C-alpha cells in the first residue's frame, strides 16, 4: 500500500503549487494527474498574471499570490517567463470610465490600492497603439504575464525536488474513508493518506461527487488565438469590460488574443472544438481597438478545458461533508495568477488547520446542500 501525508488530485498549476508548498512544510504529498501536468487550462491559458478587476472575495489570495510571483524564480528555480508591465483595463466610453471610477473608489475605501484610475493621456502613454476613442481606464501596475506551461512544469519540477511524488497518466477512480485515513483508489492502485486536496479542475465535480458533495460546475474552454511575430508595440496586458477581450504581446513578438469567448469542450475526450463565429467577434474587437492589427496573421487558435462556477469565483477551503478533504478548483477562467498563493494558503490550511489569508466567501458550503446524484 502506497501512503502519503496528503494526496493532491490534479496536476494543474494549483495542484502542483499545493504539492510544492506541502513539501516545503516537510509533508509528503503524492500528486495524481490523469494526463500530464499542465495538459489542460493551466498549460494553455492566456498567461495573464492579473490582480486587476477581481472579485472582492479573491483579492486577498490574489495579492498574496502576487508577492510570490514577484520572487517566482526563488520559489521554483525558473523565471517562468514572468514580466510585469501591468494590466490595463481600457474604457471604451465615458460611462464605462465612470463605473471604473466607482469601483476604484470602493476598493480604496476597503484599503486596496492596486487598481489606479487613468485618463486619456496616461492610457496613451501606456498603450500608444490604442484607438483614440478610448477615454481612459484602470491600471494595475504590478500585474503582468507568464508562460503558463513553463510555470506549471516549474512548480511540478520543484515539488518533486522538494520531496513530492508526482504520478502522471493515472486516474482517481474512488475515494473512501478507511479508519483515520482516506483511501484514494487510482488506475495504478490505492493510495492512503489522512488528507486529500481536490484540485482536479474541470473534473473536480466528479471527485466532489465521490464525497456526496455535488457542485454546480460547468465545463468551459475559453478560446485563445495567437498571431505571427510583429514588431514590439505594446507592453502591458490589455483587457476590456463591455466586450470580451484580453490582448498581450509576448517578448517574441507574437500577440495572444483571448477574452473568454468559449469553445465547445469535450472533457471525456480531452478535446475542444473552436467556435470561429465567436473568434471573429474577437477579431472585430481587436480591429476596432488596435487598427494596426488588421494585417496581422492568425497562426493558431486553441482552448483549454477548465471549470466555471455559477458565481464566477473558485471553490477554496475544507469540504463541507468530509473531514480531511479540501477543495481548490473552479477558478472560472482566471485561476492562473492565483496558483502560487492559493497553493501556499492551502498547504498552510492542510498543515495547520487554519490560514492567515482570508478565504471567506469561497467555501463549497455556499452552494448549499445539493442532493447527490
Amino acid at each position, binding site marked *: 500500500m502506497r501512503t502519503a501525508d496528503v494526496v493532491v488530485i490534479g496536476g494543474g498549476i494549483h495542484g502542483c503549487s499545493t504539492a510544492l508548498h506541502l513539501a516545503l512544510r516537510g509533508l509528503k504529498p503524492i500528486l495524481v494527474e490523469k494526463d500530464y501536468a499542465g495538459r489542460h487550462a493551466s498549460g494553455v491559458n492566456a498567461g495573464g498574471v492579473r490582480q486587476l478587476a477581481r472579485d472582492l472575495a479573491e483579492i486577498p489570495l490574489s495579492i498574496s499570490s502576487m508577492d510570490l510571483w514577484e520572487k517566482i524564480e526563488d520559489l521554483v528555480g525558473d523565471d517562468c517567463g514572468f514580466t510585469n508591465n501591468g494590466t490595463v483595463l481600457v474604457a471604451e466610453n465615458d460611462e464605462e470610465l465612470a463605473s471604473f471610477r466607482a469601483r476604484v473608489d470602493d476598493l480604496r475605501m476597503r484599503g486596496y490600492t492596486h487598481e489606479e484610475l487613468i485618463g486619456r493621456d496616461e492610457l496613451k502613454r501606456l498603450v500608444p497603439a490604442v484607438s483614440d476613442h478610448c477615454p481612459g481606464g484602470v491600471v494595475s501596475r504590478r500585474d503582468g504575464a507568464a508562460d503558463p506551461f513553463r510555470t506549471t512544469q516549474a512548480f511540478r519540477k520543484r515539488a518533486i525536488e522538494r520531496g513530492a511524488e508526482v504520478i502522471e497518466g493515472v486516474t482517481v477512480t474512488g475515494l473512501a474513508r478507511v479508519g483515520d485515513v482516506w483511501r484514494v483508489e487510482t488506475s495504478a492502485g490505492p493510495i492512503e493518506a489522512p488528507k486529500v486536496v481536490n484540485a482536479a479542475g474541470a473534473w473536480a465535480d466528479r471527485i466532489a461527487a465521490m464525497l456526496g458533495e455535488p457542485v454546480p460546475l460547468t465545463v468551459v474552454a475559453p478560446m485563445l488565438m495567437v498571431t505571427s511575430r510583429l514588431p514590439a508595440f505594446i507592453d502591458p496586458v490589455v483587457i476590456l469590460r463591455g466586450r470580451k477581450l484580453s490582448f498581450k504581446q509576448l517578448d517574441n513578438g507574437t500577440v495572444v488574443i483571448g477574452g473568454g469567448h468559449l469553445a465547445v469542450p469535450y472533457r471525456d475526450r480531452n478535446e475542444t*472544438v473552436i467556435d470561429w463565429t*465567436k473568434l*471573429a467577434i474577437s477579431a472585430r474587437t481587436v480591429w476596432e481597438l488596435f487598427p494596426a492589427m488588421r494585417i496581422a*496573421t*492568425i497562426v493558431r487558435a486553441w482552448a483549454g478545458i477548465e471549470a466555471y462556477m455559477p458565481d464566477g469565483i473558485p471553490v477554496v477551503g475544507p469540504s463541507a461533508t468530509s473531514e480531511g478533504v479540501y477543495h481548490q478548483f473552479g477558478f472560472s477562467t482566471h485561476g492562473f495568477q492565483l496558483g502560487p498563493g492559493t497553493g501556499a494558503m492551502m498547504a498552510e490550511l492542510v498543515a495547520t488547520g487554519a490560514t492567515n489569508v482570508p478565504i471567506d466567501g469561497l467555501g463549497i458550503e455556499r452552494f448549499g446542500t445539493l442532493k447527490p446524484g
Partner: protein
Amino acid sequence: MNASYDVIVVGAGPAGLAAASVTARAGLSTLLLDENPGVGGQIYRGITSTPVSNRAILGEDYWVGTALAADAKTSGAEIVNGATVWSLDPERLVGVSIAGQARLIQAKRVIVATGSQERPFPIPGWTLPGVMTGGAAQTALKAYGMVPDGHTVLAGSGPLLWLLAAQLLRARVKLDAILDTTPRLNWVRALVGLPDFLLSPYFGKGLKLLREVRGKVPIFHAAHIEAVGTDRLTEVVFDGRRLPADLLLLHQGVVPNVNLAMAAGVAHEWNERQLCFQPVLDADFGSSVPGIAVAGDGAGIGGATAAAERGRIAGFAAVRALRPEASVPDTQALRQKLQREEMGRAFLDWLYRPAESFRRPTGDTVACRCEEVTAEQVRVTARMGCEGPNQMKAFLRCGMGPCQGRLCGLTVTELIAAEREVSPAEVGYYRLRPPVKPITLGELASLPIAEAERKAVER
C-alpha cells in the same frame, strides 16, 4: 457558393477530382475547394494551364490528369480555386478564405484530399538560399515552365527524385550530379516485396526512368550531405567530396499532409514502413470522425493512380450514405486494382526508406525552421525529460511558427523517439490547432456576423 453542401471535397488533386466527380454525378451538391490557381494538386499541377507544351517533358503519366480534370469539370461539382481551407471541425464545418473573405460552410460529408508533402530533409545548411526541395523545382516547371540555371545538384532518394531528374533532363537542364542517399542495406528488406513489385506498373516505369537518367548525370552514393555557403549556397559537401553548386534540390520521399485531418480530430497512427503518421481509416476511407473521409496520399502514400481510386471509393461511400436509393457501381474491381498497386508499393517503401542520419539530425542542424530550433536543442530537452512534441513546444517553440509543424513535425517526433529510445508511435505528433493555414485578422473579422451577435448589436 452556398452555406451548406452535401459533400465538400478539400483538395483538387487526383483523389479530390475523382471523389467530387463521383458525388456530383450521383446528384449530391458538391463543393471542391483548392488553394491553387488551378486544379491538379501537386502531381498534376497546372494540368489545365501549364506552359510546358512538349508532352514528353512532363511525361505521359502527367497528362493522365487531363481526363480527371475534365471529368470533374463536367460533373456538376462546384470547383473553387484560390480557396484556402483553414479549418475543419468534427461537425464538418469548413472554414475557408477566398480572395480575402473568410466564410464557414457546412457539409454533410467531407472528403479530405489534401495529399502529401515532402518529408523534411534536415541537413546542415538546408536553410541557405539556393537550397530548395525537389518538389518546389517541379512546381516551378509545371506551373511556370521555369527550370534551374547554373550548377545544379539533386540529392535524396525515392521514385519522385528520379522522375524530377528525368523531367529536368528532358527540359535540357544540365544536372551536375545526383547524390543518391538510399541506404545500401535497404535492398535486403526490400527484396521480400520484389515479386509484387515486378508485377506492378511501378516496375516498368521505374526501370525506364533509371535508364533515362543514368549515363547523362554522374551519380554518387552519399551517406552525409552538407550545404555550404555564407550568404547563399556555393558548395555541396558529401562523404568527403566537394561540388560547386548554385542550387541543391533535396527530396527524400513524400508523407501524408496530415494537418487538416488532425486538426479535425481524426485519429492517426504511425506507419513504421513509411515512417510517417497516417489516418486510421476503414475500407471506404472513412476516418474516426463520423462523416469525414480521407482519400488520396493523405490516407497513406500510394501514388497518383491509387489516389484517384481511393477518391472514387470515398465518393461512392458518400453517395451510399446520403442517397441510399442511388445505384452505386460495385467497387470490388476498383478495390482489387488498388490492392495490387499498394502491394507493389511495399518494395518502393522499403527500398527508399530514408536513412536515419537524414531523418534524425544532430548538432546545430536546424530542425524547426520557423522558430530556428536546432536538433541539439530538441535532443537535450528530450534528455531532460520532455516526453513529447507538445511539451517540447512550450520549451523551444518548435512547431509553433506559421508552418504549423509541416517542416519539423516528423523530425521532432523522431528526435524525441531517438533520445527516449522508444518508437515514434509512443512519442506521437504535435496536436494541431486550426487555422491550419494562417489567415489575417482582417479575414477572420470578415466572417459573416452570427445571428446572436447581430441581435446584440441591434439592442
